[in-house]
């Protein structure tokens, strides 16, 4: 699996962002101000910028730069905010309930974002390696078609053409496999037969896979099973490419609410302290 390297512009932005933030933190230190307050405000600013990426995607008709550029800004500020977050919490694991929640949520956001970055850079190439374009919306129909086609193949056989063990293996292992979902992790494919290893293991209770897959009447079914394995691989990759967003986006929403609450609390305590 080859991962596209990060954009040089994003790397430059990270460097500049860190230098500028360091300057402000040093200034705060020099004036004996609370560095956590300074890093907190800068962190809030970078978080707002991170959230703006989602808003920009909703208005593609406005001439405010390409979304691709915004994504690089999003990634750059994501890295800067990670460093700022660690500065903000003083490189320690928090002890309070509220800050622990914030810490965990931020970690989830960071991990899901990093995973998303990895997935988006690594998977598209592998997804197209077999030259096949699969529309996720059509996959259920394709799977249903495969089951029907394979049933037709078996129904079209002359009595006695397949031995009973193979037939039993078809109905108890192969057919359920064709009807099953793809799961979350990609199956390991047997290099010789082009079908999942798990399927081979289960089939061994009925008939030797070598005998089964070399059986002439079973060849059309074998072809369908191979197609299903390829389709499953596509579907798993597509699930990964979308799945990380199911964590990243809701956690962002919760984080926004928690940060607002955090700012209100800090400001309130500061005002109370001043009195």
């Amino acid at each position, binding site marked *: 699996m080859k991962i596209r390297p990060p954009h040089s512009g994003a790397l430059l932005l990270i460097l500049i962002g860190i230098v500028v933030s360091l300057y402000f933190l040093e200034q705060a230190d020099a004036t004996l101000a609370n560095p956590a307050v300074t890093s907190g405000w800068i962190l809030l600013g970078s978080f707002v910028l991170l959230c703006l990426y989602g808003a920009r*995607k909703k208005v593609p*008709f406005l001439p405010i730069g390409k979304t691709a550029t915004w994504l690089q800004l999003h990634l750059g500020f994501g890295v800067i905010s990670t460093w700022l977050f660690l500065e903000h919490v003083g490189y320690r694991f928090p002890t309070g309930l509220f800050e622990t929640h914030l810490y965990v949520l931020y970690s989830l956001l960071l991990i899901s974002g990093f995973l998303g970055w990895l997935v*988006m850079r690594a998977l598209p190439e592998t997804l197209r390696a077999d*030259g096949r374009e699969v529309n996720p919306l059509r996959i259920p129909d394709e799977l249903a078609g495969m089951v029907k086609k394979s049933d037709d193949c078996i129904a079209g056989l002359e009595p006695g053409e397949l031995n009973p063990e193979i037939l039993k293996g078809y109905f108890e292992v192969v057919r359920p496999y064709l009807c099953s979902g793809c799961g979350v992790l990609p199956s390991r494919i047997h290099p010789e037969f082009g079908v999942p290893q798990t399927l081979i293991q289960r089939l061994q209770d009925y008939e030797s896979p070598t005998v089964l897959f070399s059986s002439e009447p079973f060849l059309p079914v074998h072809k369908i099973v191979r197609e299903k394995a390829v389709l499953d691989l596509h579907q798993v990759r597509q699930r990964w490419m979308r799945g990380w967003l199911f964590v990243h986006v809701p956690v962002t929403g919760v984080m926004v609410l928690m940060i607002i609450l955090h700012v209100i609390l800090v400001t309130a305590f500061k005002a109370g302290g001043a009195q």
Partner: protein
Amino acid sequence: MCPVTGSDMNDSEENSRDYRFSNEAIPREVLDWARFNSVLSIAWDECESRGKSIESILQMDARVIEYQKADIIIRKGDYGGSVLIPIEGEIRANLDESGEKFFLRKNVTRRRSWLSALKQFFRWQTPVERISSDSSNRNLYSEKSRVPRLDINIEEYMTKYLTRRIGLGEICGEIAALRRSPRTASVFAETDCKVLEIRWQGIREILKNSKELSYYLEDLIGDRRHQIFSGMKVLTNLPESVQRTLSARSIFERWGSDHWNRHFRKIMQSKSSMIDREAVVLQQGHHMDGLYVLLSGFARVTNKEGSEEKTVGYLRPGDVYGLKELLKDSKSSVSSPALRSIRAVGAIDLVVIPSNDFVEYVLPELKNLDIDQLGSEKGLISTELLNFFLDRRIVNGNQTMVIDLNRCTDCDDCVKACAVTHDGNPRFIREGYRHAKLMVATACMHCIDPVCLIGCPTGAIHREHTTGNVVITRSECIGCASCVESCPYDNIRTVEVQDANGEPVIDLETGKPVLKATKCDLCIDQPSGPACVNACPHDALHRINFSDASGVSSIVERITG
């Protein structure tokens, strides 16, 4: 081959049109008048003697249109598929470039304000195209298309700007109709008038049966064609007198099939070799008789390697072939043969400037130009990719949507962006031809040879004047689907029109739902330009102009590595 009518007119293709140009028959008095007083009189008897009745052709392919004073009949730069013969009243052609500003299409290029653009975001999405409620009860199919008008005093205009009256019975609009090129002049109604409009299919059928009219039109076109030299990279700086001389001495040729788009899908399915189907314009190794300048269409440049023809480049309008050979010739006394072959991909018009005239008139002008840039071997694209682009006629595109599959994550943000900017109805499909990691999506390419324009009975689909984009004026579209059938790339669709209540608008005459053609308009009214390009977070979606060789090769190189 007849230079005016084209090389391979096919009877079955000509007779395949199944609807008349107009529901109303041409009146007898108009036919009688045209027979004796119009340019058609040249061809009338000749056609009759060949068993072809011009009357029947006119009944099928002509209509009479009435214009009011100051109506714009033809707009310079527009693509039209018909010729016009004034039969009553006065019409004039505008010959003054400075006056063209009065003929510009209104309200097409106007971009939305930011506020107006943002409003789109809050619109309810509908499953199909929607029209405003004020037109919901109108019968759009039978509605007469709106005729644009000049917003100035005609008499004042004629005194201020250079115009020429087109006499009764004379012909105009023939270059655009027969050559599939833009209209060369704007024409307007000086007084209330009637015009006989003959669509290109009809005029071609007449020309096929009348050599006299063919020669007449050839002379007519020849008299005006020096104008086409202006605007070409090599010849634009030549004085007009030299352009006229070159025009008179050059050989104008038309190659390939005019109807390449009709059978394109079938040919694609047959998977037979495209190169073998293309007409050879210049054979490698043959005598190089001059400089080949492509006027319209596109051509393939091949090099014979062993027994195989290898594609090494392509030509688009304005491109030239033969510079290397002719420059070599000018330095030595020995004539060098053509180093490459040229083949017509579809229908092409080209001009061959004879070698002697090239040396005398054109060569001195080339001193300041980068000769490599004028060449035909475009960038660093591989033969496989050139074949992919040429076999599928993708080089026709000025704004071809190309997707880098190495970067595309199937997020569909491009489709969603297109939907947001078009009332919830995306104008393209993120699927299409593939070559390795490159995909050409099913989106309008805004072609250099927009065959979809030919045959549109109302001119609703047209080339936008300032940008050259192909757009559909919704109010003028009658949903006849001629553009849908003509587009060889399946990039245009028809959709049912709904009124404001979500009910389909029914044509009162046919009882069928009113349809409108729809396709990518490059977000012509959006402040951002194409929303799809803006929306792609991974920079996977590009719009390619195949005239820009360096742009093509840089994007292709980035995609294919």
